[in-house]
């Protein structure tokens, strides 16, 4: 497919669709991609990103990142900033899995040390980090204490002994976004979530043991800062979110917004999944506070999972996690909306940045970075498919163009039902074992849906972010062990 005439290249790796493309667009839309990725993007992405450009109060541009694909309302890979006074908040710009995100930890072990223990590590991780449909965690707390979890996030977990203080410093928002209010979430959301702390979930969520081979370290100085210091070092990466709790918060407010957006606020319903409410309306504020509860639940969830990983490694290697150097590199959300200060028409302004399948990527020196990363910029964790590897990037000055946002993963290109017809989970598990990747999964059909060929080439996605200057390659990790829901 050739690039349609209404999409114009405006810079290296940056493509624009003007406001005249569709009636009602408040700003132009911009897609970040190489020509080859843009060629392969579904037409529905264009339709969706230009719908986002119609939302009230949107500033600068509606963006789609290089891993963009069709989503609900917003495309996956969508970024939009709304004027904090005049604009709207939209659950469709955040996703059902609020604060779905990535966490990366390093070890001081090498592949030669881990390989003999790989199967025991993966088998034990599979037991200690429950995954799959309806998975219950191993932390028994009351519904009342769960309200503390959703207001305190990873801080709750660290206070309970599930982690180290340094983990909090190396988590977006220090693992606890302020302003979360448990009174804004439904009892149903609490019921769905209070037993799920420390669980991975299903679908594209995973936990991997990966290797940083010397040939895959692209920036030695940045890698050193992020803790990648020796050849063939083992790292641990995982991807999950706020589980049933966050899904229920999103579902509840989608319905609330649909009931009021037109009748009470006179907002046009472009697509029911783009339901929204004025940010400063009672409904908008309640959703923002409830969404923050789900953000905190996800930070606590990933904190407890890191703690389990430390326990398993310590048990298998008969030592302490400190001795194994299991330090968190970073934890970053890719489904979230946050109030941030950015340049709009040459002036600093407070805007509500929606990132859905997009990662915050602060450049060197920017506010919000922990001291340890002030000079390097923020670590950006890009999860790939289980076959192809994942990346660690760093935020750059250039990300200011996209409200400090970049890609989040590889992005699907094949539907789940098609993938399941084309691949068989058990065959895939064996094929990957032959390639040196040991997998434990809760579901073989679910495994087949996650075959590498169902995803875009992650190298192309990362290249596109570099070409456009919104993030920078630090290292690529190849998996040797994986657990999946």
């Amino acid at each position, binding site marked *: 497919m050739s690039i349609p005439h209404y999409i114009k290249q405006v810079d290296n790796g940056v493509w624009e669709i003007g406001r005249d493309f569709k009636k009602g667009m408040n700003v132009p839309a911009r897609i970040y991609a190489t020509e080859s990725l843009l060629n392969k993007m579904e037409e529905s992405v264009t339709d969706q990103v230009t719908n986002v450009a119609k939302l009230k109060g949107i500033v600068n541009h509606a963006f789609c990142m290089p891993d963009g694909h069709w989503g609900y309302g917003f495309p996956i890979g969508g970024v939009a900033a709304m004027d904090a006074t005049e604009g709207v908040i939209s659950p469709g710009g955040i996703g059902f899995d609020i604060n779905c995100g990535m966490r990366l930890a390093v070890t001081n072990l090498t592949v030669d040390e881990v390989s003999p223990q790989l199967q025991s590590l993966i088998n034990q991780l599979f037991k200690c980090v429950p995954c*799959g449909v309806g998975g219950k965690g191993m932390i028994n707390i009351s519904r009342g204490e769960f309200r503390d979890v959703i207001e305190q996030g990873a801080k709750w977990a660290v206070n309970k002994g599930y982690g180290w203080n340094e983990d909090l410093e190396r988590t977006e928002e220090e693992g606890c976004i302020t302003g979360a209010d448990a009174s804004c979430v439904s009892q149903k959301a609490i019921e769905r979530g209070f037993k799920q702390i420390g669980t991975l979930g*299903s679908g594209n969520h995973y936990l991997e043991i990966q290797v940083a081979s010397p040939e895959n370290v692209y920036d030695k100085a940045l890698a050193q800062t992020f803790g990648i210091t020796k050849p063939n070092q083992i790292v641990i990466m995982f991807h999950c979110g706020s589980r049933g709790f966050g899904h229920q918060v999103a579902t509840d407010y989608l319905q609330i917004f649909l009931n009021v957006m037109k009748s009470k606020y006179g907002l046009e319903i472009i697509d029911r999944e783009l339901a929204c409410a004025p940010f400063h309306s009672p409904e908008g504020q309640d959703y923002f506070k409830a969404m923050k509860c789900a953000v905190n639940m996800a930070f606590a969830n990933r904190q407890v999972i890191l703690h389990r990983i430390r326990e398993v490694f310590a048990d298998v290697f008969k030592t302490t996690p400190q001795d194994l150097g299991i330090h968190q590199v970073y934890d970053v959300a890719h489904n979230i909306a946050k109030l941030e200060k950015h340049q709009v028409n040459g002036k600093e302004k407070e805007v509500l940045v929606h990132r859905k399948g997009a990662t915050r990527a602060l450049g060197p020196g920017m506010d919000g970075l922990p001291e340890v990363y002030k000079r390097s910029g923020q670590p950006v964790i890009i999860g790939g498919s289980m076959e192809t590897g994942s990346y660690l990037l760093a935020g750059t000055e250039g990300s200011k163009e996209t409200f400090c946002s970049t890609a989040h993963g590889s992005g699907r290109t094949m*539907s789940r039902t098609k993938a399941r017809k084309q691949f068989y989970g058990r065959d895939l598990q064996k094929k990957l074992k032959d390639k040196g990747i040991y997998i434990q999964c809760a579901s073989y059909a679910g495994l087949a849906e996650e075959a590498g060929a169902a995803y875009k080439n992650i190298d192309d996605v990362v290249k596109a972010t570099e070409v456009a200057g919104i993030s920078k390659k630090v290292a690529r990790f190849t998996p040797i062990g994986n657990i999946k829901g």
Partner: protein
Amino acid sequence: MPYIYLDDIATADIAFRATAESLEELFIAAADATVNVMVEDLDVIAAKEIRAFSLENVSLEMLLFNYLQEFIFYKDAESLMLRATEVSVKKAGDHYSLKGEAKGESIDYSKYEIIVDVKAVTMCQFEVKETAQGWESTVVLDI
């Protein structure tokens, strides 16, 4: 089968179309289609536990939306995999009311081929319509 999965609607998720002669059969077919995304063979779910639902809505679409959410809710809140057994839908004045029952059991990985978790029912292309043959519904589930 009263439902088919649609390949080309949602790349990262799963869509289905359910058809039935009556509204009650449509609701049961849509519930089966939702649970069948998670469990390969619905017939292995034993009817050990019963849960009753009572829902109301001014919109028939939102009534189905909320009904399907119940199956997702019990899957997370009580780790129960339920199958719809009985449903009655009535229109009274300007709103619809539903009474239903579902039977099932605790999720047992040793017993079923589990496929993938359903996170939510979405409003994307969500539709309930009356046709010459009866009723039809299109639903996209978030995975």
